């Protein structure tokens, strides 16, 4: 899976971005560049699906793919790669098994961990409580998960048996969507009363996968579960409850949001930078971020309609998203910031 995802990303980036941009994409780096790349190259699915990935691990996998002849470095381009013929064939051959359809990274990356940890902790708490055993060590320290379970356990404790039964029915239906092996792996990870779930490495040994693939598979399954629960909140009422307050709408960063509030009060970029003690560039990043998500973004305030047209023409002619290439073909009055804004607003129109 991990190999397939790296190869897919490299394929879609068409040699226009370095390998570390894939690393940032998988980690879910909050920088505007990464988010924008995800949109431009249609890699939204993969955004933030591997938040605990280390650079070392990523690089090792990359070098291995090069050594196995699936990837070539692009000449004269530092740390940019393209698929070799074998790489293209490999991807074609494995397409069916990559399970890419599980993922929905850009939408779910922020809520995946919390949702999953709440589920794990809820199962552990309810089953132990059912056996009147309260001295168990929680599977996670995550405060949000702890707080949520503590709060909801109060209302569930009088009808533990029923809640557990519905949880079982729901999980049964949800896991039934997956191949046997995936469902089995998911269940082996669960901790209940005097049964402790397996670690990532134990799962990878048992199912003969890599640690990376175990992580990605679980993430992908959680995404798919969330999607399914969203579609039928009544059928999956307990899972829906776990999801309830985890909003997906809050996509822009806290800091960009602050900038947005000030923009709405008609402060200029320079004023905001001074007020917030930030660099102008940072405020620019915030505005691009806002432009990505705000469907009513007032683009005309930042670049004239005429210039917008010019950028779009160049974009379509150049057939490239490399900012440097685009900038060079444009009237030099048009700044990088303006190009990025046009890109952000028009992400859906292009391609």
């Amino acid at each position: 899976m991990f190999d397939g995802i790296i190869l897919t990303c490299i394929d879609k980036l068409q040699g226009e971005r370095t390998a570390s941009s894939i690393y940032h994409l998988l980690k879910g780096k909050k920088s505007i560049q990464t988010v924008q790349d995800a949109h431009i190259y249609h890699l939204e699915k993969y955004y933030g699906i591997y938040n605990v990935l280390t650079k070392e691990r990523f690089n090792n996998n990359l070098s291995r793919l090069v050594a196995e002849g699936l990837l070539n470095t692009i000449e004269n381009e530092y740390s940019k790669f393209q698929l070799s013929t074998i790489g293209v064939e490999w991807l074609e051959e494995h397409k069916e098994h990559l399970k890419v359809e599980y993922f929905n990274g850009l939408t779910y990356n922020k809520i995946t961990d919390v949702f999953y940890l709440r589920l794990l902790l809820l199962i552990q708490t309810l089953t132990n409580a059912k056996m009147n055993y309260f001295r168990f060590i929680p599977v996670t320290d995550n405060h949000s998960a702890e707080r949520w379970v503590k709060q909801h356990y109060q209302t569930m404790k009088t009808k533990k048996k029923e809640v557990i039964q519905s949880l079982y029915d729901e999980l049964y239906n949800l896991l039934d969507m997956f191949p046997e092996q995936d469902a089995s792996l998911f269940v082996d990870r669960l901790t209940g009363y005097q049964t402790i779930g397996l670690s990532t490495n134990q799962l990878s040994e048992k199912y003969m996968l890599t640690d990376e693939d175990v992580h990605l598979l679980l993430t992908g399954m959680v995404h798919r579960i969330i999607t399914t629960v969203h579609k039928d909140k009544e059928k999956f009422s307990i899972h829906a409850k776990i999801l309830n307050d985890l909003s997906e709408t809050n996509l822009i960063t806290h800091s960009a949001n602050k900038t947005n509030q000030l923009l709405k009060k008609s402060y200029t970029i320079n004023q905001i930078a001074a007020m917030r003690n930030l660099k102008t560039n940072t405020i620019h990043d915030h505005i691009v971020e806002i432009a990505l998500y705000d469907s009513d973004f007032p683009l005309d305030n930042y670049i004239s309609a005429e210039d917008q047209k010019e950028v779009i023409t160049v974009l379509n002619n150049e057939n490239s998203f490399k900012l440097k290439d685009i900038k060079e073909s444009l009237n030099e009055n048009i700044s990088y910031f303006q190009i990025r804004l046009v890109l952000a607003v028009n992400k859906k129109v292009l391609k």
Partner: protein
Amino acid sequence: MQDTNLLEDTLKKQFGYTSFRTGQKEIIQDALGGEDVLGILPTGSGKSICYQLPARIQEGLTIVVSPLISLMIDQVKELKANNFKEVIAINSFMNPPERKSVYNSLYNYKLIYVSPELLQQQELIGRLKRLDVRLFVIDEAHCISQWGHEFRPDYLKLSEAIEALNHPTVMALSATATPQVQEDIIKALNRPNMNKRIYPMDRENITFCMEEVADDVEKIERMTRILGKYRIPALIYFTSRVAAENTARILSNRLEDRNIAFYHGGMEQIDRISIQQQFMNGQLDIVCCTSAFGMGINKSNIRLIIHFHLPLQLESYIQEVGRAGRDGKSSIGLLLYSPKDAFIPKNMIKNELPDKTDITNLFRHLYTMVQQGMEVATSNEQMENQLQINETQWKFFRFQLEKHGIIKNNRIQFQEENWRHALLSIETLIKERIQYKQEKLNDVLRWINEKECLRRNLYKFFQETYKNPKYHCCSNCGFTWDKWKPDETPLEKSHSESWQAKLKKVLLVGNVNEAE
């Protein structure tokens, strides 16, 4: 007399023990009576009860300084599981809003664990000052001494914190402190009249076993044979994460009916909890681990502790081997060594401290920062990246620079003469430290090659006598494996089931043996 009963009742009711172990009661009574106390208790003798019990029954607040975040978190979890809810661990892993909300509600707690770094913060100290701090506990107090086996510069500043908190009763605890280290602790805390409660650290139910082999391959063969013969809970200690992982894999292949896993600090938190709990729960027989495992692990029936690599100091060996046999039953500490082994620790000792190039780089970097009017980055990580050194190394530097007045409140003070002097003094200090560690390693090497009683020669650095061994003494006093008949754990056949059946089982659906 009534007091005594109260202590015993609390012990039973709150902690589930019927009687105190050696030393616990004396130390607790000192603390409750407002007397400062230095307690040296062997590993596994329940040091933490010494402050958890007073915290529970005494008015006011108990603060515990502990060097290891994982240890703090484990203890808090355990206390909460035991229904002592007014406890919290404040550490640098908390995000700012979380920490803020804890700071605002400090008065809700009776027992607060805190890392020595955070206790430097004026904000925290200021808030703690307003509370009624009755007992100030320094866990792993040997960290205060340069000559302790894990020196932590931050510990040296604890006496300031104690003063700022208006001199609460002080309790310093350690499992391994030589007489020299004990003196250092008392001096550094500036409490010359501390009661000294020193208890022998020898463990009468542990047998020491030393075996020389040709190389790592042979080590694995020895372990395969021993672990194949006995089905017992065992820990195997490694100094490297990779070696722990690889050996776990090899042993799993060779010993198919044993459940074996690895554990180290580089794993995700959820996986670490999972492995710990599986071992506690008996789902795992053997854990291949680094020194990160074991602190705060409360498993009483570990029968065998194997050291695959040389420990760097006898102190750490005593701590690690002390995790065996807390139930008092016959247990073994096996150290496997090959002639080549002495080289690895030598490198580890060197890597622990910055070297000469690092020092020159540091001063050059600081100078550039002075010229650009920059402050020292508040995040340690940033400095570590800029200087390309590890966390321990930067902490060492930072402490030294503060000591020499080069860093004051994150500002760099440039004064050429002072810098020259500091540079030399730091270089000398590092030389001394490396030499000291080398000497400690030599003690280990001498012990390994010891022809006479291993027990006597292990403990002689710490105490004058030792108890008669309850079972077997050591491999130099006639122990052989055929004499060892430990309690074994029953074999549980794991059979493969469908996920549907497993799901049913884990959720206790259709389970008739429920407690309700």
